[in-house]
């Protein structure tokens, strides 16, 4: 009967898959039996022995992927082989998704006390030190200061910032490996030079000029296509309040970011400063005059990027690589070969203040689980990390020499003579260098030259991404790395919502902006514990020695 055949097939499928799924694949999910009990605070591993142990050590690494959509390196990746042969380590690299999914995975593993040996902190809100702190408090992580001497080269290139090390030190023990942050101060203001030229305008230097230029861009058809389809500004929300991408506006009033790092003696929430409502009013004027793309509160980063490539607006805040790097710029270039973006300095506010934004210096943090330390894997982890920084640097960062890249006379990375699909920056090769932003790169000049090379645009101009980078880095930024020691309040969701919602409502005109309503807003913040939050933030900074 048909039914029986169907059932038979189903049963077969069921059995086969149960067997397949249960059989340990390349993934060793079970670690070796835990060694003797730990004394709290846990003792890190013993001094390494001179001879490598006979059995390979299994190490599971949870880290994000540099290019999520490209997928993981294949099982026969040469790096796995080399790590096995030369380091006596069986490495399993599990890709942790970016964003909330990854955070959920990490949190769940933490709850089950089933953390991997070596892991990256992946909170969705980028507060990695906060996440580290929580996990340390739960007793899930092992101190690693004894591992640092085992990786001298790596410490030289990656862990050479005492400030960063202090950040991950709790109770006199270092609990994480603070990786080098991505290139600092890499975002900035840019403006369409061709639009300026068409309308015979000068690049704006003050907030007032900025407003006028934005107005012109919106109303005077700067792209000359006869349609009223352009805006002065474009942006999206990315961070607390108005986010980091509009911080230049508040910087023009001396108040970029959430906390007042510009005036340490007067540390507190920026919104308390009397100039803040003026800045909000300025932003509101942009919205009221309709010179900003009205989708700014709901746009995602993808949509935003699609729009500037479609020529929707003329002034924006963008990451230098996202703007100028060849693969990102090419679609725009094809659309508008005569267009040109130039960087814009921080506009001056009415009182002459000018800041691009707050430099927070957040970088990745890796940690070792207490379980791994108990099993004596610490030394192997250090060996692995050291190898990654030395012999493994090129392999994990760029690929194999002669196959994916060549070194030219100056020792720079080049793709001369390499087939297009084998070159290290081709889509096909992305799975092999997924760890590069996580553990490998440390902003060496070689890297920068390799990652952001100059090239020719369609109409023959030379585009040099590093020029934009230099420009941005030389703008006035507020030193705000101390923000990393500030822990969120207990009612973070409520406080943050009130903080953000109030500001956006003022900007959108949902609530009228005057002295009375502003005072109400501040009072509301206090009612939610704003004053206490600021006080504990200040204390945290003092304790970390960042404030007197």
């Amino acid at each position, binding site marked *: 009967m048909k039914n029986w055949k169907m059932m038979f097939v189903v049963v077969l499928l069921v059995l086969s898959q149960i067997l397949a799924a249960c059989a340990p694949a390349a993934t060793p999910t079970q670690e070796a039996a835990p060694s003797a009990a730990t004394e709290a605070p846990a003792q890190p591993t013993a001094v390494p022995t001179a001879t490598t142990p006979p059995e390979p050590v299994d190490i599971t690494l949870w880290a994000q992927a540099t290019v999520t959509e490209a997928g993981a390196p294949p099982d026969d990746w040469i790096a796995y082989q080399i790590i096995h042969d030369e380091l006596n380590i069986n490495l399993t690299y599990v890709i942790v998704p970016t964003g*909330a999914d990854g*955070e959920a995975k990490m949190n769940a593993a933490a709850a089950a006390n089933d953390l991997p040996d070596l892991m990256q902190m992946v909170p969705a809100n980028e507060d990695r030190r906060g996440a580290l702190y929580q996990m340390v408090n*739960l007793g899930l992580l092992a101190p690693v200061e004894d591992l640092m001497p085992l990786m001298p080269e790596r410490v030289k290139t990656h862990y050479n910032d005492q400030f960063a090390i202090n950040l991950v030190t709790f109770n006199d023990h270092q609990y994480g490996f603070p990786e080098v942050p991505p290139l600092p101060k890499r975002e900035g203001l840019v403006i369409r030079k061709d639009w300026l030229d068409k309308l015979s305008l000068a690049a704006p230097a003050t907030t007032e000029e900025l407003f006028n230029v934005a107005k012109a861009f919106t109303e005077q058809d700067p792209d000359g296509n006869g349609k009223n389809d352009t805006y002065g500004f474009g942006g999206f929300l990315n961070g607390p309040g108005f986010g980091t991408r509009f911080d230049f506006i508040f910087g023009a009033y001396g108040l970029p970011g959430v906390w007042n790092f510009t005036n340490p003696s007067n540390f507190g929430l920026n919104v308390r400063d009397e100039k803040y409502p003026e800045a909000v009013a300025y932003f509101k004027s942009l919205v009221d005059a309709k010179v900003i793309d009205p*989708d700014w*509160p709901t746009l995602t980063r993808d*949509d935003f990027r699609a729009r500037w490539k479609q020529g929707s607006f003329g002034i924006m805040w963008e990451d230098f690589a996202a703007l100028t790097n060849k693969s990102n710029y090419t679609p725009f270039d094809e659309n508008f070969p005569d267009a040109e973006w130039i960087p814009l300095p921080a506009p001056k506010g009415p009182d002459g203040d000018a800041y691009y934004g707050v430099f927070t210096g957040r970088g990745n943090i890796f940690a070792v689980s207490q379980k791994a330390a108990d099993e004596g894997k610490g030394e192997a982890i250090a060996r692995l990390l050291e190898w990654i920084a030395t012999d493994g640097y090129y392999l994990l960062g760029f690929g194999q020499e002669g196959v994916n890249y060549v070194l030219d006379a100056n020792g720079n990375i080049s793709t001369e003579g390499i087939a297009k699909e084998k070159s290290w920056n081709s889509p096909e090769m992305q799975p092999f260098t997924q760890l590069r932003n996580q553990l490998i790169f440390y902003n060496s000049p070689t890297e920068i030259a390799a990652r952001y090379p100059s090239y020719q645009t369609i109409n023959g101009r030379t585009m040099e991404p590093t020029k934009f980078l230099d420009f941005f880095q030389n703008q006035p930024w507020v030193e705000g790395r101390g923000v990393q020691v500030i822990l969120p309040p207990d*009612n973070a969701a409520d406080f943050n919502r009130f903080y953000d919602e109030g500001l956006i409502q003022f900007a*959108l005109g*949902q609530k009228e902006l005057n002295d009375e309503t502003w005072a109400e807003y501040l009072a509301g913040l206090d009612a939610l514990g704003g004053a206490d939050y600021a006080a504990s933030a200040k204390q945290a900074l003092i304790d970390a020695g960042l404030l007197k």
Partner: protein
Amino acid sequence: MRVKTLTIPPEVRSTNRFDFRKLIRSMWRQRWLYFLMTPTLIYFAIFKYGPLWNAQIAFKDFKPLLGVMDSPWVGFKHFETFIHSFYFTDLMTNTLIFSVAKLVLGLPLAVICAIALHETWSVRFRTFVQTMIYLPHFLSWVIMFGVLLVILSPGNGLLNTIIERFGGEPIAFLTSPHYFRWVVILSDIWKETGWSTILYLAALLAISPDLYEAAAVDGATPLQRIWYISIPGILPVIVLVTLLRLGHILEAGFNQIFVLYSVPVYSVGDILDTWVYRQGILQFQFGLATAVGFFKGVIGLALILSANRLAKQLAQQGIY
């Protein structure tokens, strides 16, 4: 059409005292039934009640190193945090508005569509519509956001272009507290109605055609047919679905709202789940999310019990 009430077998009820032997006998008579259900009941014990046992962390300060059993009790602390939080009434209001609106507007539409399909003579047309109508169910909300942006954007959106052509002012549908709720409700109905009709259609097909033939012989109009045969025929399913949805009334569609909402519409769009997401997930607050789950369960239970009673009175249908 059956009257659905639980009737206690007369063998058990007849005597005033508990008749053990009669009970055993009647259980033995039904032994195959128990045999059939045993694997599933074991499954329930492990995979439904197992996690419920772990869910006691809603009343504890859960520490991974101590495990579920040894973590200290904190009683109702998580519940208090949640209920006394600043936005609690907002969140409850929004959650309920979304849930109830989606139910009240979406369910009847799905039923009507199912009936309409069922009544259509042309098999080709019916099949065609049936196959197309459920497709939006498969679109993820991330994609839908892009579509909605194109339609509703105040800059160059389709709707606003039309509005402007008629001399109106563009409306920021996605960021306006006045319109956001409608965007959410209508887009959800758009997406899910087709999928819901599948169930009602299957229910309609289970109605014996004899009834329809008898009605035709009696000269009934299509509307009479629908009112006297189709609807009563699928009433059990409708009531059941309604009751079940009421049991989950505090599930307002996290995936949808999370993608569609933004700061300007927090006041009308923030629901329980999005708040829990922002609060719980960010701070290793393992017990909080579980506590909210309990809370939802309690409310759902109260609703389902009262609705069940109401349904029994009005329509003689019910779960119990």
